[in-house]
C-alpha cells in the first residue's frame, strides 16, 4: 500500500516537474493578448474568418494581420470585445453574406440523373449524373448540411435560399458546394462582380452591357416583390428610371422566347418596377459599405460618371462629382428630350444617388475651372474621367455657318437648358442616329410645320432605335433617304433658304456591313427649309488636355477619334490614377453601356485604391457569349403576344413635351413577366410541359 502510494506520488511528481520545467524551457513567447482575444471570440472553430481556428485568428488579430472584426460568428459585439482587448477602434468591416446564383432549381430533375445519389458532392464526382447543365444547382442540399447556423434551406423552387438574419458569412456552404452556386460575398464583392465564363447566365443577362440579372428581377416582379426587383437592378444599374425609358434593350434581341415568339418586353418591366418605386412615394433604402476614407473625383455627371460614383460610394469610398453643365445628368438631361425622359423623373433618380452621400459641384469645367493639379492637391486618390462626347461633327459643306444652321447635341442641349432659339417653319435634320431623330421630334414639338430627316442610306441602315423611327413616322416626320447634303444655300441676309443634296445609291457593303452609299452624279436637288440641323455624330471634347496646365496631363493619350485611350478591360488610362468610361472612352454609345462602364471603372478604381494590381476579373465575359447558351430553336414555347407599350396619342404629343411612352399597367406587367421563360444558362421553364431532359436525349 505504502509503496504504491509513494510510487504514484513519485510518478505524478516527476511528470509535474518535467512539465513545469518543459513549459519554462520550451516556452514560446505568446502575447498575453492572444489568449484574451481568443477568450472573447466565439470559439466555434468554424474557420469562417479564413484562419485555422479561433486561436490562429486571435494571433492574427494580435499581430495586426486581421481586424478586430475578424470573427464572423460573434458579429459586432464580438468585434467590440476584441477591440476592447486590443485597445483599438472597431473597424467597420462588412459582413459577408451567402447568396445563391442559380435559379434553375425546380428544373434540377431535368438536368441531372440522380441515380439514388443523395449528396451534391457525390453527384459532382459522378460525371454520368450530368444530363444537361455543367454549372447549375444540383439541389441535394450539401450547403444546408454544411450550415451550422440553420441559415440555408432548399427553397420551394429547389435551390438554396439563405436567411440573411441567420447567416454569419462563415463560408461553410460555399466550401461544401461543388458547383460554385452558393457564394459568400460582402456587399462590395457582390457589387463588383462581373459576368464570368462559368456563371449560370441567361442569354439576356449575358448581353446586357450593365450585366443586370434580368431573369431574377422579372421573377421577383412575377412574385409581386417589386422592391426586391428594384434592388436587384440597383446592384448593377443606378439609373433604372432613365434606362427603363431610353434603353434600346439589346437584351431583348437575345431573348430566348424571341427565337420562337416575340421577345419579352424586358425594358418595359424594368420601367414598371422603377416607376413603382418612384410613385410609391418613398425611396427603397440603398445600403453602402462602411467608409474606407478614400476620396475619388468623378469628372462628368453623366450616366457613366453617376454610375461610377454610385458604385464607388456603395463600396465605401467618398466621391465628389464635378459637372460642367448647370445640372447633373449629362446626355440624359441635355441630349435626351423631355418627351422621352422627363426632367422630373431624372431629378428624382439623381437625387437618390446623391442621397448616398455624394457631393456634386456643377458649373465647373475640367481644364478651365479646375485641373488635375488642383484635384491632386485637394487629396483625391483617383480620378474618373467621364466627360462624354459633346462635340458635334460638322458636315464640312459650304454654308454651314448660315443663320438657321445648328448642330445636333448643341441644339438639344440649348433647348433642354431652356434657351429660346429663333426657330424657322421648316427644318431638315441631317443624320440617321438617335440624336437626329431626337432633334426632329423636338422640332415638331416646338411648333415647326414640316420636318425632314435627310439620311444618306435607307431606313434599314438607320442606326436610331426602331421604336424611335416608328414614333417619328407616326408624328409625321418626312424622311429623305439616299441623300447627301452638298450645300446650304442662304439669302442675302445670310439666312438659310434651301438645303441642296445629292441623290445616292447603295453600293457594296463596307466594313460595318452596311451598304456603302455612292453619289449619283448630276442629281442635285433642293429642299426648301429655313433650318438645318446636322446630327451626324459626336466626339469627346478633349480640350481640357490642352487647357490644363498640369504637365502630367500630356501623358494622357487620346485615340484618333479623340476618345480617351484606355485599357479596354480595366478602363485605366495612360495615367494610372485616371480611369475612364462612357462616351468619352467609347465614342457615342448607349446609356446602358456607359452605366456598365462606370461600374467596371469603379472596380478598377477600388483595386487601385487598395494598392492591388489593376487587373480585369478572371474569366470575365465582357459581353462575349457563352456558346452553349445560345440556341437556334426553343422547344415548348406557346406563342403569346407581347405587351403593347401604352403611349399618348399623336395629337397630344405634338403640342407639348409630355412623355410619350407610358408605363405598363400592373396587370399587363404581370402578364408580360409570365411570358419570361426564366432562362438560365441552358435550362428554362417551357410554356408547355416539355421536358428539358428529352431535348438532351
Amino acid at each position, binding site marked *: 500500500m505504502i*509503496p*504504491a502510494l509513494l*510510487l*504514484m506520488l*513519485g*510518478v*505524478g511528481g516527476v*511528470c*509535474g516537474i*518535467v*512539465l513545469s520545467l*518543459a*513549459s519554462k*524551457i*520550451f*516556452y*514560446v513567447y505568446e502575447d498575453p493578448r492572444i489568449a484574451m482575444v481568443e477568450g472573447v471570440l466565439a470559439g466555434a472553430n468554424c474557420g469562417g474568418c479564413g484562419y*485555422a*481556428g479561433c486561436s490562429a485568428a486571435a494571433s492574427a488579430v494580435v499581430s495586426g494581420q486581421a481586424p478586430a472584426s475578424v470573427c464572423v460568428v460573434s458579429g459586432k459585439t464580438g468585434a467590440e470585445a476584441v477591440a476592447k482587448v486590443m485597445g483599438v477602434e472597431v473597424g467597420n468591416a462588412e459582413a459577408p453574406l451567402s447568396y445563391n446564383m442559380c435559379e434553375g432549381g425546380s428544373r434540377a430533375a431535368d438536368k441531372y440523373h440522380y441515380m*439514388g*445519389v*443523395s*449528396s451534391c*458532392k*457525390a453527384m459532382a*464526382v*459522378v460525371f454520368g449524373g450530368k444530363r444537361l447543365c455543367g454549372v447549375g444547382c444540383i439541389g441535394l442540399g450539401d450547403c444546408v448540411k454544411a450550415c451550422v447556423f440553420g441559415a440555408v434551406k432548399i427553397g420551394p423552387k429547389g435551390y438554396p435560399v439563405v436567411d440573411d438574419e441567420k447567416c454569419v458569412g462563415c463560408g461553410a456552404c460555399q466550401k461544401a458546394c461543388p458547383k460554385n452556386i452558393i457564394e459568400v460575398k460582402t456587399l462590395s464583392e457582390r457589387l463588383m462582380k462581373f459576368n464570368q465564363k462559368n456563371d449560370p447566365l441567361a442569354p439576356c443577362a449575358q448581353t446586357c452591357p450593365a450585366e443586370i440579372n434580368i431573369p431574377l428581377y422579372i421573377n421577383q416582379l412575377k412574385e409581386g416583390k417589386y422592391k426586391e426587383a428594384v434592388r436587384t437592378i440597383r446592384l448593377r444599374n443606378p439609373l433604372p428610371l432613365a434606362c427603363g425609358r431610353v434603353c434600346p434593350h439589346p437584351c431583348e434581341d437575345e431573348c430566348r422566347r424571341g427565337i420562337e415568339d416575340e421577345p419579352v418586353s424586358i425594358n418595359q418591366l424594368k420601367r414598371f418596377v422603377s416607376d413603382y418605386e418612384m410613385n410609391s412615394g418613398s425611396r427603397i433604402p440603398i445600403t453602402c459599405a462602411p467608409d474606407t476614407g478614400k476620396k475619388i473625383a468623378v469628372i462628368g455627371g453623366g450616366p457613366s460618371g453617376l454610375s461610377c460614383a454610385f458604385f464607388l460610394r456603395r463600396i465605401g469610398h467618398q466621391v465628389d462629382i464635378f459637372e460642367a453643365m448647370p445640372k447633373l445628368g449629362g446626355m440624359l438631361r441635355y441630349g435626351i428630350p423631355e418627351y422621352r425622359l422627363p426632367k422630373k423623373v431624372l431629378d428624382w433618380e439623381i437625387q437618390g444617388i446623391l442621397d448616398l452621400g455624394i457631393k456634386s459641384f456643377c458649373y465647373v469645367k475640367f481644364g478651365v475651372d479646375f485641373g488635375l493639379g488642383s484635384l491632386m492637391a485637394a487629396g483625391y486618390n483617383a480620378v474618373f474621367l467621364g466627360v462624354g462626347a459633346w462635340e458635334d461633327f460638322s458636315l464640312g459643306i459650304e454654308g454651314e455657318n448660315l443663320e438657321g444652321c445648328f448642330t445636333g447635341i448643341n441644339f438639344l442641349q440649348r433647348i433642354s437648358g431652356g434657351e429660346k432659339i429663333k426657330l424657322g417653319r421648316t427644318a431638315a435634320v441631317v443624320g440617321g442616329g438617335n440624336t437626329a431623330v431626337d432633334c426632329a421630334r423636338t422640332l415638331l414639338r416646338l411648333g415647326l410645320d414640316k420636318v425632314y430627316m435627310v439620311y444618306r442610306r435607307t431606313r434599314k441602315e438607320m442606326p436610331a432605335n426602331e421604336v424611335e423611327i416608328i414614333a417619328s413616322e407616326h408624328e409625321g416626320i418626312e424622311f429623305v433617304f439616299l441623300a447627301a447634303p452638298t450645300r446650304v444655300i442662304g439669302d442675302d441676309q445670310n439666312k438659310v433658304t434651301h438645303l441642296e443634296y445629292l441623290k445616292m445609291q447603295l453600293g457594296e457593303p463596307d466594313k460595318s456591313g452596311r451598304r456603302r452609299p455612292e453619289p449619283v452624279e448630276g442629281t442635285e436637288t433642293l429642299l426648301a427649309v429655313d433650318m438645318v440641323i446636322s446630327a451626324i455624330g459626336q466626339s469627346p471634347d478633349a480640350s481640357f488636355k490642352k487647357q490644363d496646365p498640369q504637365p502630367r496631363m500630356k501623358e494622357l493619350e487620346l485615340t484618333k477619334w479623340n476618345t480617351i485611350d484606355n485599357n479596354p478591360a480595366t478602363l485605366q488610362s495612360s495615367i494610372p490614377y485616371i480611369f475612364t468610361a462612357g462616351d468619352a472612352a467609347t465614342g457615342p454609345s448607349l446609356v446602358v453601356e456607359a452605366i456598365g462602364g462606370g461600374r467596371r471603372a469603379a472596380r478598377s478604381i477600388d483595386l487601385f485604391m487598395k494598392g492591388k494590381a489593376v487587373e480585369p476579373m478572371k474569366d470575365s465575359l465582357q459581353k462575349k457569349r457563352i456558346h452553349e447558351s445560345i440556341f437556334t430553336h426553343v422547344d415548348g414555347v406557346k406563342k403569346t403576344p407581347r405587351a403593347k407599350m401604352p403611349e399618348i396619342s399623336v395629337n397630344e404629343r405634338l403640342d407639348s413635351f409630355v412623355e410619350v411612352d407610358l408605363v405598363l399597367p400592373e396587370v399587363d406587367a404581370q402578364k408580360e413577366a409570365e411570358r419570361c421563360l426564366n432562362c438560365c444558362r441552358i435550362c428554362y421553364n417551357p410554356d408547355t410541359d416539355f421536358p428539358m431532359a428529352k431535348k438532351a436525349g
Partner: protein
Amino acid sequence: MGDLFVLVISCIFINNILLAQYLGNCPFLGTSKKMETAIGMAMAVIFVLVLAGGLTWILNEYMLKPMDVVYLQTLSFILVIAALVQFVEMFLKKSIPALYGSLGIYLPLITTNCAVLGVCLINIKEEYTFIESLVTSFAYAAGFGLALVLFAGVRERILLARVPKPLQDVSIGLITAGIIAMTFMSFKGMV
C-alpha cells in the same frame, strides 16, 4: 530480425488495433470523414504511440516491476502518457513549429486515447523487449493509420450510395467498420 518482421505483419494486419482489437474507435469514427484529416490523425498516432510505447516499457521495467506494484500499470500509464503528450506538444511548438502546425490539433485528441494505452498494456502483457515494444508500437500505430485511411476512403465513397435514413452517417460507418473487420479476419492464420 525475422521475428520482428513477423511481429510487424501481425500487428498491422492480424491484430490490427482497430479492426481486431476494437480499440481507438472514437477517433476512428470522428476523424475518418475526410481523407485529409484521417492522414493527419494517422501520422500523429504513429508519432505519439512510438514515444509512449518506449516510455511505458521503461516505467514498467524499472519502476513498477522492482517495486512489485504492476497492478498500478493502468493508472500510472494514463498519467505518464497524458504528461508525455503535453510535453511533446510544448516541445514541438518550440522546436519544430512546422510539424506542430500539421500535427498540433490532433495531439490533444490522443492524450487519453484507448488505442495508445491499449498498445502499451499489450506490450507489457506480451513481455516484449524494449526494441520489440518500440517496433510493435510503431506497427500497431501503422495498422491504426491503415485502417483509418481505408475507412476514410470508404466513407467518401459511401456518399455516392443511397443509404436508408435510419442508417445514415455513423450507423452505416459502424456497419462498414464491421465488414472491414471481417475482411481483416482473413489475415488470421497468415503467421
